[in-house]
């Protein structure tokens, strides 16, 4: 569905997209009442693909009606979660799929303007999107009267400038407003007072790209795309990276066994290697063991049942050659680098846990370091404005719980130091 035209350069142009059935869903949507679109998306069971899994139709229904204020749609194309590289492919290959979804969503929530926030490093997706937006305006699909409907729908591309935290929705709004990307305290929620203090909805690229398919083929069809449970419907683009034979993006029906993805579609581990661990939802979720991965179903509930979260479905796969302590340190270093530093628990916690992990790796750890890591992680969970520090704590806590012996090997000196202390 979403990935059908990946690799097909002809799908990038407006005409090419129309030839492939494009913009029929937008035409259909513009003839519907906005409330009816929201009901259809609600009925489809579509949930946010950026990581949180919040029901999309419900989110849209939070937007006020008839309040006379400008409304905004923000498309989150800041894809920066380690392990995740799916939105990039949607933009590179099917820019009009995304624009059509944005236009439908904007109309449904009463927004005349949609900002697509593209991370600064995505130079090629930005160029492709710029060309697509220009074409969509020239062909009248966007602008003062989208597809001749009399409804104004504008799309503005806004380039980020290098900050993981801007993928957090309130930080993104600050960034568009020309501020530092610090997350905001909620409430107020974006639907009440979001971008420029106006009612705003923020959706991920993949979420919005799914909307035209739902409008075209109906909520029941979409809902039928589920192999395990009615709470996780449709398809999901899964980015697989790390130690598999064939890394890449795979679009699977919700509920597909993880084992099937890793060992059939991705070709399993390199010869002679076995699976050790998987971080299934982008780096911000708990690490899974090979045993947990073995009977895990790829949908929101299925991954939770095996001790982690589906998140953005960026799967980092690690084979038996991996030093888990080293990888957890590298992740902690990522979060320490990306902390916006406004909350103490995050600013201090991400840096401190990184330092502790560094000294363990340098062979200078103390037995009490494990408890210190766990107690810091507790202070970093559920206590800050956004979840960045929770995300740093997740791999640390799950790593200690599930791979304790690797930490102990460094602490006892059984394992040679992997890092030299500066």
């Amino acid at each position, binding site marked *: 569905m979403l990935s059908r035209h990946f690799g097909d350069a002809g799908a990038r142009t407006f005409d090419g997209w129309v030839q492939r059935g494009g913009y029929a869903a937008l035409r259909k949507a513009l003839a519907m009442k906005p409330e009816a679109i929201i009901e259809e998306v609600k009925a489809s069971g579509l949930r946010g693909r950026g990581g949180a899994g919040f029901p999309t139709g419900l989110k849209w229904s939070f937007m006020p009606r008839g309040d006379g204020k400008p409304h905004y749609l923000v498309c989150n194309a800041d894809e920066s979660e*380690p392990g995740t590289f799916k939105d*990039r492919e949607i933009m590179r290959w099917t820019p009009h799929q995304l624009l059509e979804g944005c236009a439908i969503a904007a109309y449904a929530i009463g927004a005349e303007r949609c900002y697509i926030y593209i991370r600064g490093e995505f130079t090629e997706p930005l160029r492709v999107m710029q060309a697509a937006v220009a074409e969509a305006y020239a062909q009248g699909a966007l602008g003062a009267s989208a597809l001749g409907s009399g409804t104004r729908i504008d799309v503005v591309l806004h380039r980020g*400038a290098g900050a993981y935290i801007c993928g957090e929705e309130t930080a993104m709004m600050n960034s568009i407003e020309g501020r530092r990307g610090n997350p905001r305290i909620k409430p107020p929620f974006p639907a009440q007072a979001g971008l420029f203090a106006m009612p705003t909805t923020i959706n991920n690229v993949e979420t919005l790209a799914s909307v035209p398919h739902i409008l075209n083929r109906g909520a029941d069809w979409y809902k039928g795309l589920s192999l395990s449970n009615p709470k996780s419907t449709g398809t999901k683009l899964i*980015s697989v*990276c790390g130690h598999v034979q064939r890394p890449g993006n795979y679009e699977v029906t919700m509920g597909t066994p993880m084992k099937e993805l890793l060992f059939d579609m991705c070709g399993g581990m390199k010869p002679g290697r076995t699976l050790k661990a998987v971080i299934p939802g982008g780096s911000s979720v708990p690490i899974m063991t090979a045993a947990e991965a073995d009977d895990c179903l790829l949908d929101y509930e299925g991954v939770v049942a095996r001790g982690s979260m589906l998140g953005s479905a960026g799967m980092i796969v690690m084979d038996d050659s991996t030093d888990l302590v080293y990888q957890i340190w590298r992740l902690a270093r990522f979060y320490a680098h990306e902390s916006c530093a406004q909350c103490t628990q995050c600013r201090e916690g991400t840096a401190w846990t990184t330092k502790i992990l560094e000294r363990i790796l340098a062979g200078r750890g103390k037995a009490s370091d494990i408890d210190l890591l766990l107690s810091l992680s507790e202070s970093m969970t559920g206590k800050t404005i956004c979840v960045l520090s929770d995300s740093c704590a997740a791999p640390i806590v799950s790593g200690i719980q599930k791979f304790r012996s690797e930490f102990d090997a460094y602490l006892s000196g059984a394992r040679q130091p992997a890092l030299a202390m500066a």
Partner: protein
Amino acid sequence: MSGTPHGHTDTPHAPVFTGNIRTRLDALFPSYPTRQACLLPALWMVQEERGWISEPAMAEVAEVLGLTPAYVKGVVTFYTMYHTHPVGRHFIQVCTTSPCNLCGAEAVLKALLRGTGCGELGATSADGRFTVTEVECLGACGFATPIMINDDFIEGVTPERVPGILQGYK
């Protein structure tokens, strides 16, 4: 490009927002309800034009958008892609975050530091040609190791490919 690596120039600041560039900035205003919202795009324009964003340039952006220089500096320094000092002609960013680390990014980074003559992270080669930095997750984890040279995004880089890639950037 103006200035010398890691130094500040004493030459007076030539305004960036004149002619064409001013026209491009003005064309953005209707897309946003506030001028402040044009700050990130305006900073990109400065960097595209001058290679980096000097304090006088920050002051000029502040003036054009009705902000204070201190405010603009606060925003510039929040975002990693804005350079607050001159960098080499070709700015190289290497992804070394976990997924790429698993696939050998450290060796790619070493090969780049060696091949460019930069020696260490953030330093500019003596001929002013290259600056190499690490970057956190470039969002291309399945195509490890991705690097960026200026605006070029190059996937699947290995230490063996480094000399050939560098030849393309004189």
